[in-house]
């Protein structure tokens, strides 16, 4: 049957709700979505090609620019892969500092997600609350490494420098403020009728489907799968830390929202434990200078705010990697978008893009 009512429209690449330069070709029947095709690559900068032309240490700044809302975890995954490749032992203090930076970054990234996701759906107020606390985190980062967004705060073998004096006290003050602030965000949204109407039952995915699509991070846990790289394949000091892995029940946008809210609280809990575990010591392994690994192949991944972020490195005996393949969580998570929006309305596409928490810098590389 010739369906004359079907309409094909472009959403993006210049659209405020696509969080960058994502283009989706939507096929509509009235306002109902019958098909969607994401078109990516508008931000492709050839980062994996650049990785092959720089030294192992020289590549770290480029990892900042992949997921620019979570540079610390990006640094961590890359440095961890090189350390695994070379068998470098990271000093204890550096491990604790790395976990502190990772968890701060997780909170900062989730705050951006919450602010923009709520803004997309039409709630403007949370944005101001979220960016107030995020500013505090960025100030902490700035004091530690001089940058606010593209941190470059880790290096192969540890972290760049020790924490500045007084930094831990500021971190403690932040945790105090933040623990109260999370409840402010929840007050605005969790019981909000409009918020619930826009998110409950939107973009539902079953646990089996989620695993088959390779989802990781909050989109996977929202479907009720209790899986987190920090527990499944532990790294740094995570085995010693107490934290819960929140999971959803229905696998919809609202559950993914609840999962991320609880993750922020758990990050704050981890930060408190890390402060207790911080002992004086070196922050970088000794003798990490010119890196010239023998031919080998490794993969190392961390739990980034968006999911499993991995670096796959092949060395060939020179001081430059033969191949670096990034496993970006957003690239894999975005792939499921057509399945999530089918049968919903155009306005729900915006909610689903928000709930997947994508960053195009990492998808397009």
């Amino acid at each position, binding site marked *: 049957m010739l369906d004359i009512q079907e309409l094909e429209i472009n959403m993006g690449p210049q659209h405020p709700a696509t969080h960058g330069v994502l283009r989706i070709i939507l096929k509509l029947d009235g306002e109902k979505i019958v098909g969607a095709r994401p078109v990516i690559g508008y931000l*492709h900068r050839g980062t994996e090609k650049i990785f092959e032309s720089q030294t192992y240490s020289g590549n770290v700044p480029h990892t900042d620019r992949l997921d620019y809302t979570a540079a610390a975890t990006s640094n961590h995954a890359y440095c961890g892969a090189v350390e695994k490749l070379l068998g470098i032992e990271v000093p204890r203090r550096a491990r604790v500092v790395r976990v502190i930076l990772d968890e701060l970054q997780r909170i900062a990234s989730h705050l951006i997600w919450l602010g923009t996701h709520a803004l997309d759906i039409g709630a403007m107020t949370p944005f101001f609350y979220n960016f107030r606390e995020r500013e505090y985190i960025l100030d902490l980062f700035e004091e530690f490494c001089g940058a606010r967004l593209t941190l470059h705060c880790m290096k192969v073998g540890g972290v760049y420098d020790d924490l500045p004096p007084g930094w831990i006290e500021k971190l403690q003050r932040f945790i105090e403020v933040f623990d109260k602030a999370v409840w402010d965000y929840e007050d605005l949204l969790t019981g909000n009728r409009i918020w619930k109407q826009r998110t409950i039952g939107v973009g539902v995915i079953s646990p089996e489907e989620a*695993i*088959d699509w390779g989802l990781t991070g909050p989109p996977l846990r929202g479907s009720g799968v209790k899986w987190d790289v920090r527990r499944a*394949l532990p790294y740094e000091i995570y085995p010693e830390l107490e934290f819960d892995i929140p999971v959803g029940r229905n696998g919809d946008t609202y559950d993914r929202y609840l999962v991320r809210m609880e993750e922020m609280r758990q990050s704050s809990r981890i930060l408190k434990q890390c402060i207790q575990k911080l002992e004086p010591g070196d922050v970088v392994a000794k003798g990490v200078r010119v890196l010239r690994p023998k031919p*080998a*192949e*490794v993969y190392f991944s961390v739990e980034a705010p968006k999911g499993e972020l991995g670096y*796959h490195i092949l060395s060939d005996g020179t001081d430059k990697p033969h*191949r670096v393949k990034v496993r970006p969580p957003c690239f894999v998570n975005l*792939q499921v978008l057509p399945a999530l929006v089918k049968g919903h309305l155009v306005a729900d596409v915006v909610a689903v893009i928000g709930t997947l928490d994508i960053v195009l810098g990492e998808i397009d590389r």
Partner: protein
Amino acid sequence: MSQNPPAGNPPAPAAVKKPGQPEWQDAAANPRAAALKAAFGGRVLDAKTYAGELTVWVEGAAVAEICARLKAEGYTYLVDIAGIHQPKVADKPFALSYLLHHWDTNGRLRLKVEFADGVEVPTVTGVWKTANWMEREAWDLLGIRFAGHPDLERILTWEGFNGHPLRKEFPIEGIDTGAAIYPDTYPEGGGPVKPKETPHA
């Protein structure tokens, strides 16, 4: 250490083995590798571990079949597919690394396939849905073709782009694609790049 230790001092403690780069180790005895070898015989070529990661080399034509079996055994999550260009390996200049995750044991397994230029590798999109974009990426950036892929189109570069950027012969500065975006710098139809004018010199 040119100086001799003064006589009478206790002997220096035995040198502690410095942690260095790990070594590749043969993994033919690994139960997972041995089970694969038993099931697929000659199509499983080699098995080694490095830094605790098991890598099993298999024949390109058998990869979809092996993946389907592994998925049935619990490897329900495909972590990543990495395409590799290795022009120094004369007869097998291309390779693919499939990283599989076992959901119950959290164990990981890497399947490695090496093949000549132009050889089509069977797609694993029928095994895991997530393989779709990963294979599209390997096609786009390295020019590896997958037989049976439902939608093998470019994904990170634009349609009509000429070349595969992650091949080693592709220049890092990029190529002149002939697109008349900056006609002052890149003349139409290719040719040498004109030097930039400096208006305020």
